[in-house]
């Protein structure tokens, strides 16, 4: 039986609005001006004979002249002295690390062009996130300062390092002599060498001190652990050891602490290999806004932000049998019921359960610690003895600093990788206080919000130009090594600190090396060169100890209840990090701006997410502009996005937008939501109460999801874990359809390149999209073009909503229409790319044979043959073909990245940049296939499975994408494709796609009785 569960991509499709129906029938998003051309006046105009001849003559002349142009002289400029390790045309890979994660940097002729995960990374055995993938573009960012600068009267003047040094040294000497404080404000420093450099600086200027400040803070967890167990650390979470994961608004697959690492751990218990062993973890998510993690949960329960605390108290009470006050969820019967079930399940899975919470409130986190201790998580799923050093910011310390600055107690302040004038909870208070500091120095690479208020900007290297190191976890050290000479006249911040401290060793390479040789290498028994090759050093991990919780929770419960009551107003607002923009530090990265948010699929903007029914109550519709006014008086105007699954009475706004001084791409994109953050009970709180009032304005968000319609055909198949255990092919019943062939069968004797995508592993995070963009030189088109459905991404992730009731799936359209709230939607993410159909409909309709099939199962696209009829795009059932409407690399209207001669250095020289008027699509990274084959030929060996990896596959932390040769029965992909879960999208139209998808399995069935 074919499942007739109904999926929809967006509310317009779900409601089948007349606009949606009409638009979907159209080829273009906007009507073409055909009417104007074909109206009476247009048709009856007469072209006089002379005009016609003139035009003809001019055209002929122009064409002749254009054709007469002699072949341009091409210069070829070799190295003067070629470095021995560089062979033009062959990439070099260097180990480095990004935010503590060990990576490989691919360079061509000395230019870093791609980030890849380091297979020797050990602990971080995962892909890379979108930020890491996009970070190569930041290196070539032309919005950066080209030289260090002094700021005088609001004007930045580029100057020399000698002048900066004498200025700063003078200021620091004055500050030291004044007896006042010197402060270095930095986002978490987990680099041992940076810390050593700061120590040298402090030795020279004893008044100096490091204040760590993270825009999105984890102080709550750190302090809660100090309070509960006497360890002020962020623990190491082991999601791979958890059979039951309960998350309270922690977006651990996306932005919470270390999303990629957690994704790898999480999917290890849910992917096809785990399922073949009949094992699948269960994940229950309680949250207000729809997060990426929420979309992946087996059971997702929307709770208001003010209900989160009471829910945790209720859970604690149910687990321990105690009766802490405040654990009532009177208004949320579903949550109440689920909490009781979850408590039973957690008790059943003692030592195999994990409860995480995204709150930054110390009391809440203490309660979570108590719950985890009660279910025996410590020592198994939570490791306090090998802690995580990714975040160490201290909110209270930073707030204290602002107060000190305001009182004039600080004589000098240095900003390292921090931008509080943009992301502080109260930017006004911060900038006012900053004005009272005599000497202000920033290490920012550009005159950003904070740096432009400073006196000197000692521009720092990009991480790809730097030496350095990171210590992400206890005993886990990774190296940062430069992959290019500094692009601008920048200097590494640590070197600046050492210079100002008159340190004996100022060369930071020597400094890092001697630091490692003294502290890290002897213990690991490695040499420096070996570390540079491997990228990481791990020392033996300590045994994770079990911890018990003994403290009284009375005060904690009271604090939680009070906060919850304070929050419970008409509209509860949650500000959150979204995947593309995170805390806004990379806002000028066009790749990230155009990466659709995984849930809302919105690009180039933030918005107010509101549940459909709540929107009705507020009398707003989608894209209506509303004023959001916080309890602290801060207000912004943003468009509304109707978000199914959002808890009633809540709204969510993404952080990281509304930068004003980051650069051409990122300035004035969206609105800044950081001022909604409040400082309560010693930590930053990311929930507040607001009022929402419509302004009457309308603003269309640039969404990518609803651009294509599958016309109601079944593209998603799913089953529950219970059904799967009974029958591995559950949900994948093949419907009756006729097999017919318009094409001749032909052989694929050599290789047959195919792909398998595990829908159960894919979390929808989107790092594959950015990896593909960087690998294949895909242009960024900007907000307006995305609105016109012209985004160029070769791979997209389709997000489908579906609805479940307790009586089972909603099966008929009519029933869906009757449903009243859309709170309990479930979500499937489906990566969609060219399916390389064996019987490709696009090939049949191409009048010039620009797209043809190869003998190894690929659908080739010859750009220089394409004349741009776009027949292929119209005939593609998967809607994966993209048309170049403009010369994006040579058109000032698209000044995002490709249009700049300098930024073009990021392009992959093995892939052609496409010109206007041609069609493009996923090539299955054919440059990688050809490169892998050539390597095997040169080594005179047969191609091995795993020699060739796709860019998307490599970036995927979840290992959801398997690529390989279907002609090799032992290849990973052949094994995956033999799974009973494999189905082909739109199989019934007989195009014989080359990409198999595995059914989505949900572990929805509780193992306990209510």
């Amino acid at each position, binding site marked *: 039986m074919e499942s007739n569960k109904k999926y929809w991509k967006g509310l317009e499709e779900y409601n089948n609005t007349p606009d949606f129906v009409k638009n979907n029938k159209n080829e273009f998003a906007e009507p073409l001006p055909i009417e104007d051309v074909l109206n009476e006046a247009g048709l009856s105009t007469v072209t006089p004979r002379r005009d016609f001849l003139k035009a003809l003559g001019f055209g002929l002349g122009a064409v002749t002249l254009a054709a007469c142009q002699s072949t341009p002289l091409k210069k070829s400029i070799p190295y003067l002295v070629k470095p021995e390790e560089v*062979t033009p045309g062959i990439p070099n890979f260097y180990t480095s690390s990004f935010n503590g994660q060990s990576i490989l940097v691919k360079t061509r002729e000395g230019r870093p062009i791609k980030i890849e995960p380091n297979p020797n990374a050990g602990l971080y055995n995962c892909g890379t996130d979108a930020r890491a993938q996009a970070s190569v573009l930041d290196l070539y960012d032309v919005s950066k300062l080209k030289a260090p600068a002094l700021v005088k009267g609001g004007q930045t003047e580029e100057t020399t390092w000698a002048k900066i040094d004498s200025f700063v040294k003078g200021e620091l000497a004055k500050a030291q002599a004044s007896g006042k404080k010197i402060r270095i404000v930095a986002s978490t420093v987990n680099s041992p060498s940076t810390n050593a450099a700061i120590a040298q600086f402090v030795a020279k200027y004893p008044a100096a001190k490091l204040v760590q400040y993270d825009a999105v803070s984890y102080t709550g967890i750190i302090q809660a652990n100090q309070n509960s167990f006497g360890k002020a650390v962020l623990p190491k979470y082991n999601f791979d050891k958890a059979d039951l994961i309960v998350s309270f608004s922690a977006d651990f697959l996306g932005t919470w602490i270390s999303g990629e690492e957690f994704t790898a751990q999480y999917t290890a218990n849910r992917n096809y290999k785990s399922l073949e062993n009949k094992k699948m973890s269960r994940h229950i998510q309680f949250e207000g806004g729809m997060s990426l993690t929420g979309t992946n949960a087996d059971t997702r329960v929307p709770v208001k932000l003010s209900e989160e605390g009471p829910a945790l108290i209720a859970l604690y009470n149910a687990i321990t049998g105690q009766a802490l006050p405040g654990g009532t969820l009177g208004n949320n019967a579903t949550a109440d019921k689920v909490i009781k079930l979850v408590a039973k399940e957690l008790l059943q899975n003692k030592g195999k359960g994990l409860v995480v919470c995204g709150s930054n409130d110390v009391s809440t986190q203490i309660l979570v610690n108590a719950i985890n201790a009660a279910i025996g998580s410590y020592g198994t799923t939570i490791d306090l003895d090998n802690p995580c050093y990714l975040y160490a910011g201290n909110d209270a310390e930073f707030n204290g600093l602002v107060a000190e600055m305001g009182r004039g107690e600080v004589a000098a302040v240095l900003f390292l990788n921090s931008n509080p004038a943009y992301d502080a909870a109260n930017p006004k208070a911060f900038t006012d206080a900053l004005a009272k500091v005599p000497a202000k120095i920033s290490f920012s690479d550009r005159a950003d919000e904070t740096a432009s208020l400073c006196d000197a900007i000692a521009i720092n290297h990009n991480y790809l130009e730097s030496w350095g190191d990171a210590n992400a976890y206890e005993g886990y050290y990774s190296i940062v090594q430069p992959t290019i000479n500094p692009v601008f006249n920048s200097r590494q911040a640590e070197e600046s600190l050492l210079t100002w401290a008159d340190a004996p060793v100022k060369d930071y390479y020597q400094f890092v090396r001697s630091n490692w040789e003294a502290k890290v290498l002897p213990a690991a028994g490695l040499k420096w060169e070996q570390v540079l090759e491997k990228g990481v050093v791990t020392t033996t991990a300590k045994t994770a100890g079990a911890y018990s919780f003994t403290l009284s929770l009375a005060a904690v419960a009271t604090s939680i209840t009070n906060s919850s009551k304070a929050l419970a107003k008409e509209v509860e607002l949650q500000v959150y990090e979204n995947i593309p923009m995170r805390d806004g530090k990379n806002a000028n990265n066009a790749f990230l701006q155009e990466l659709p948010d995984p849930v809302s699929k919105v690009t180039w903007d933030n918005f107010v997410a509101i549940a459909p029914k709540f929107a009705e109550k507020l009398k707003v519709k989608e894209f209506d502009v509303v004023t959001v006014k916080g309890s602290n008086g801060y207000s912004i105007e943003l468009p509304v996005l109707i978000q199914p699954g959002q808890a009633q009475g809540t709204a969510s706004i993404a952080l990281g937008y509304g930068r004003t001084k980051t650069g051409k791409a990122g300035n004035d994109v969206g609105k800044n939501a950081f001022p909604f953050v409040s400082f309560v009970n010693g930590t930053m709180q990311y929930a507040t109460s607001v009022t929402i009032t419509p302004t009457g304005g309308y603003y269309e968000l640039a969404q990518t999801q609803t651009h294509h319609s599958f016309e109601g055909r079944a593209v998603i198949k799913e089953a529950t874990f219970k059904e799967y255990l009974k029958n591995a092919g559950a949900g994948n019943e093949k419907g009756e359809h006729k097999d017919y062939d318009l094409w001749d069968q032909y052989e694929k004797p050599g290789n047959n390149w195919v792909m398998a995508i595990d829908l159960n592993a894919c979390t929808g995070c989107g790092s594959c999209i950015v990896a593909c963009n960087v690998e294949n030189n895909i242009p960024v088109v900007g907000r307006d073009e995305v609105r016109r459905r012209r985004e160029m991404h070769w791979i997209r992730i389709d997000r489908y909503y579906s609805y479940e009731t307790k009586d089972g799936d909603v099966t008929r359209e009519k029933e869906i229409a009757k449903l009243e709230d859309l709170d309990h939607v479930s979500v499937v993410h489906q990566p969609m790319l060219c399916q390389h159909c064996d019987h490709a409909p696009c090939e049949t309709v191409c009048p010039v044979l620009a797209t043809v099939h190869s003998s190894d199962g690929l659908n080739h696209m010859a750009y220089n043959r394409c004349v741009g009829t776009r027949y292929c795009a119209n005939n593609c059932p998967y809607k994966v073909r993209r048309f170049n409407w403009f010369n994006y690399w040579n058109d000032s209207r698209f000044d995002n990245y490709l249009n700049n001669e300098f930024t073009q250095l990021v392009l992959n020289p093995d892939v052609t940049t496409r010109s206007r008027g041609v069609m493009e699509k996923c090539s299955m990274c054919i440059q990688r296939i050809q490169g892998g084959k050539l390597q095997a030929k040169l080594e005179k060996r047969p191609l091995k499975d795993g020699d060739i990896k796709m860019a998307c596959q490599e970036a995927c932390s979840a290992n959801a994408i398997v690529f390989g040769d279907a002609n090799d029965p032992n290849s990973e992909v052949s094994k995956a494709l033999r799974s009973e879960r494999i189905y082909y999208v739109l199989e019934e139209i007989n195009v014989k796609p080359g990409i198999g998808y595995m059914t989505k399995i949900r572990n929805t069935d509780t193992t306990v009785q209510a």
Partner: protein
Amino acid sequence: MRDISMILKSVWKSLFVFSAISVIAVSTVNAQDAKEGRTLFKAKCSSCHALDHKVVGPALTGVSDRHPEAFLLKWIPNNAAMIAAGDPAAVKLFNDNGKVPMTTFPELDEAKVKDILAYIKEGEPKPTGDAAAAAAPKDETTSGLSIAGIVAIVIVAIVILVILGRASKLLERLILQKQGIEIEEDVPLKVGVRKMFKNKKFVMFFILCLIICLGSFGWMGMWNTGVHTGYQPVQPIKFSHELHAGINQIDCQYCHSGAFKSKNASIPSLNVCMNCHKAVQARDKYDGEISPEIKKIYSALGYDPETQKYDESKSKPMEWVRVHNLPDFAYFNHSQHVVVAEDAIRQAKGLQPNEPVCFACHGPVNTMEEIYQYSPLTMKWCINCHKETDISGQKNNAFYAKVIEAHEKIKKGEKITPALLGGLECGKCHY
């Protein structure tokens, strides 16, 4: 005509040989030694020494005057032992020359050292008859000048013929007039042409010819648009492949090392040139001055041949003009062709074993004074080769063994070409 020049040349040659022999006969006293010494000097010493200028070691002219022969006989084979033994003269010499140790030559016995010293004393033989005789055979190929000469002579001959014909006609007529015979006046040319153009058949034929001519001309022109066979731009350094790859037999790989590893054959960076040209300065051809072309390498690198120091601030990259231009949308990989497919290409193009595989597409590079584009580099040219080349010999490469086996199952008996293995599919070169 050719014969005459050949005869002239051989006459010249014999004259040269005669004069050369007489010169040699005169100076035969030390000649045997000096000639032997020259060979030894070029093999052993010339990488560090020159006669008239400093290279790594000092200039050697007059060395016999500066040092006693006994000293030199000991110093040259094993200077290190002398220094180690503390010979004061040896230590002084070592210190005077920046303490750069000289290579030891235990293989040089006393006679050989004497030969070398004899050569140094004698100096480089003057480029007299010998050199001219050696240079002469170069002209044996038909030069552009001689073709022009032939053409000129032919034209002159035709002119003379025409004039003679006219004159004889005139004379004939005069004779006839004298004899009183009436002669028919020639039909004026103009009238004849006009008459011809009234003939419809002729007009038809003429127009047809015109169309065919113009059409074929246009057709050829269009086919050859963007085809640059023979393209030979002027390069910033007059680098001669004939000298380097031809006469000196330097392997292509020595400079174009990328061709065997990468898609780019790559133009060598100037430090590769300096491996030889630090010592090789061709001074003998430029009156003791460094060759102006080699000087260009030095100035690009900021190298001062006197002090032998590099000054990076004066360096500037060399801008060569690219000769072989593939369009950006076509992917070509050298290593695939010169390493993986070397045998197949050699066979298909009929290369001699002593010719590098590069000649298959780049032509006889060893005879090109300045490099030019030999092959058309059109897609048709690529495809023809991919269609015709038999690559069944690739079976000894384990990669191909598997692929060929797979293909043979379905296409038994057919010739195995790159095309059969999918080498003509668009995406193999265009991505």
